[in-house]
């Protein structure tokens, strides 16, 4: 079962919005949030260009993920590619989960244990990932509708505070900051790499990607617009500017809207984490399942069967264990994770690897491939 272009757009956009919510843009007098509005525009244009190899891959191998395409070129090559993507998604999942917990802890539950919060989030997301890409896509559709409702509600509550004088841009002063803003937006758009795993599940990818890039740009610009016009210079003083917007929103019946804000963002973080666990479980699937006995592995009571059957739970457990050093404030570990999910690895994963896969001629034909394509819920299919 595949998902439509609309569902592709929604799941990618949900993941992008999650990144936006937990980010803390580095702002100053010379680097105001206005610059990020321009940075988002340029970054989106760059992403549109970089995503082209994925589109070609989809065209050439409509029902294969990047790791499955790599397996056509050789088992060792496939293993290396799978490891690279696995490490990226693993790091990305840890960063997003721990950032979110820090954000929730900082904003709401200062005395609560972040590790317990992480455990609950990951446990729920593991359940979500077992629902398969269809389940995740449908859920993100509904949650996205709630988000849209929130996006309308918040500006309406904030409308009196909008000050257009804050919306200034001086090219002579800020031109140097634009590159930082572009890089910042780009580094938050790593969800495009999920396409490497999601390719076989997507229908009408071109439309989905176009929708995502436009939707992402519009959503980011709207949120940035309100952050700039409402918060003004206050942005540089707060940790989470987009969250602080909710604190400004005053309604006659609710004192503040930030609790509703957290409600919507928890839902989005659930979708994002489920998606990352789904991606990791797919790669685990490609490690441990072989073509001859994909289905049998799951039934077999051996270690490989266990890994195949519970790969989503294993992926969740790996993320949970990987989060512990972050909560223990192991700075070097955190730096390594950030480096892995940085701009250069992202370019490698979006552009270089798909490019190589397009250029190299396969050693083996498709019938000899060792991969095991996964079905809707990530479970292997009989070839």
């Amino acid at each position, binding site marked *: *079962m595949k998902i439509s272009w*609309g569902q592709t757009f929604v799941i990618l956009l949900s993941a992008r919005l999650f990144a936006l919510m937990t980010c803390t843009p580095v702002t100053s007098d010379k680097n105001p949030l206005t610059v990020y509005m321009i940075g988002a525009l340029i970054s989106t244009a760059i992403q549109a260009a970089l995503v082209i190899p994925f589109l070609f891959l989809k065209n050439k191998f409509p029902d294969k993920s990047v790791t499955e395409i790599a397996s056509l070129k050789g088992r060792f090559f496939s293993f290396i590619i799978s490891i690279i993507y696995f490490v990226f998604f693993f790091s990305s999942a840890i960063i997003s989960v721990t950032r979110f917990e820090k954000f929730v802890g900082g904003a709401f539950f200062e005395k609560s244990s972040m590790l317990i919060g992480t455990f*609950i989030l990951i446990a729920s997301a593991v359940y979500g990932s077992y629902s398969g890409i*269809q389940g995740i896509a449908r859920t993100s*559709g*509904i949650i996205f509708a709630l988000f849209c409702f929130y996006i309308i509600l918040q500006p309406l509550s904030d409308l009196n505070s909008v000050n257009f004088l804050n919306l200034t841009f001086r090219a002579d002063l800020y031109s140097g900051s634009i590159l930082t803003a572009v890089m910042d937006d780009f580094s938050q758009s790593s969800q495009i790499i999920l396409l490497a795993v999601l390719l076989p599940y997507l229908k009408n990818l071109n439309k989905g990607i176009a929708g995502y890039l436009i939707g992402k740009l519009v959503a980011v610009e709207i949120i940035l617009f309100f952050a700039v016009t409402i918060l003004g210079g206050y942005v540089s003083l707060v940790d989470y500017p987009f969250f602080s917007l909710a604190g400004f929103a005053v309604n006659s019946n609710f004192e503040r809207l930030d609790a509703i804000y957290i409600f919507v963002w928890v839902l989005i973080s659930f979708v994002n984490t489920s998606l990352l666990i789904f991606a990791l479980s797919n790669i685990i699937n490609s490690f441990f399942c072989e073509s001859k006995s994909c289905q049998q592995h799951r039934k077999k009571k051996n270690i490989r069967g266990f890994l195949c059957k519970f790969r989503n739970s294993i992926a969740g457990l790996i993320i949970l264990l990987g989060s512990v050093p972050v909560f223990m404030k192991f700075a070097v570990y955190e730096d390594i994770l950030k480096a892995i999910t940085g701009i250069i690895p992202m370019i490698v994963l979006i552009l270089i690897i798909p490019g190589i896969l397009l250029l190299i001629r396969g050693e083996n034909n498709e019938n000899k491939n060792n991969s095991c394509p996964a079905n809707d819920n990530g479970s292997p299919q009989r070839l």
Partner: protein
Amino acid sequence: MKPDAGNYENIKISTSLSENIQNIKNILDGSCDLLFNEVIISGHKAAYLTCEAMVSTSLLPELVFHPLMNLNLGANSGPNKVIEAMNSTLIICTEKANENKYGNIIIRLLSGFIIFFVDGADQAVAIGAQGFEKRGIDEPSSEINLNGSHEGFVETIRVNMSLIRRKMKTPYLKFEMFKLGSKSKTDICLAYLRDRVSMKMINSIKKKLEKTDLETILSSGYIEPFLEGKRRGIFPNISTTERPDKICSKLIEGRAALIVDGTPFVIIIPYLFAENFQTIDDYSQKPYYVTFIRIVKYAAFLISMLLPGVYVGIANFHPELINSTLLINLAESENGVPFPLALEAIVVLIAYELIREAGLRLPKAVGGTVSIIGGFIIGDAAVQSGLISTPLLIAVAFAATAAFVIPNLYQPITIFRMLFVVAGGLGGLYAIALLFAVVIMNVCSMEDFGIPATAPISPLTLKSMSDIFTRAGFQKLQKRNILISNLNGADNEVEE
């Protein structure tokens, strides 16, 4: 081989009348409701067998006995000629069959047919003259409506089929009969419109029905689990109705209906989550009012499931969300209560369910008294004594009342209401949001025959949205021509 209760189905009948009667007696172990009489038909020894109170005593003499007693085929006619005459010359009734195996004869006998054996003939004649007592067509108690039809299904499968056929006079409407249950041999009828339904779905339903290996099927609930998809959700994705008009409206959308003999509840396959918020009255009232009522129903669903939990969560973890006047009032009310808020809420919820269950099972007169004692006296006393707070009681009562707006979802709502209270007590809105996400995920992952339960909301089918949160006018609805098989998202085919 002598047939008995364990082995008779494929054994052919004998040409000896006495042996056949003895064999039938053996199979039924001389059950006292088995009646037989020996008669002479056109000079041949014959016998008829019936089941007591299963045949019509008024129809038998006029339609069966009188023509048979006057039958005269001449002196040289053989026993098979009598059988032939019963089939061809005599128009006794529309439902007639020749049977030569005990299996079929027993099923027909126990279904209210009259069975004729003629000495020397190798076949028996089964004549449909059923006349057992049955409930009359009445308004369904569980689906009362204001402006629509007041007809409801009854327990007799043939009557239910006729109720559908009367409303759908199209040759495309097809009924297919099955017998399920190794002991009960219950009649099951699959109804669908040939030009609307996906035949893949129909074949898949048949396959699933074949897999049932139950001894008895006494209600539609026995076979529902066999028809559900691989991922079983907490919310129902197969529903039943007592209304023939509702079944017709579903058939026109390309769904199938499964009528089970002995129950007035007809199964609709597949069923969408959004349909829990629709009633047949929606289509006989003004669209603007229906839209308003639908929004009220969706709100009622959220209120009934979330309100006590959100109250506990906000009061415990997010008091900053509430405006100061309300917050002071709440704080004052909760001040004198000796228990933690979450525990207090759970106790009140359990007490409510206890009173409801007691009121439901007792006779109507006593049930009302229990509700009054439980609701007014105990509730009032508990608040007066300071054991529970008034705002919490209001929240629980409001949530409980809201649940009755969508009766189909009462069971999952009740359980989730408790879970949300626990989540609110442990983790405030954070835990509530996560549990809510899990609930959404559970509903979203449900699908039957490839049709997602959340369709047409997610995956979004704009064309069908005119009858989900709102209800468009019939001028617009008639142009939609929506088929259920088109609601499965990315043009995926209906699953087998």
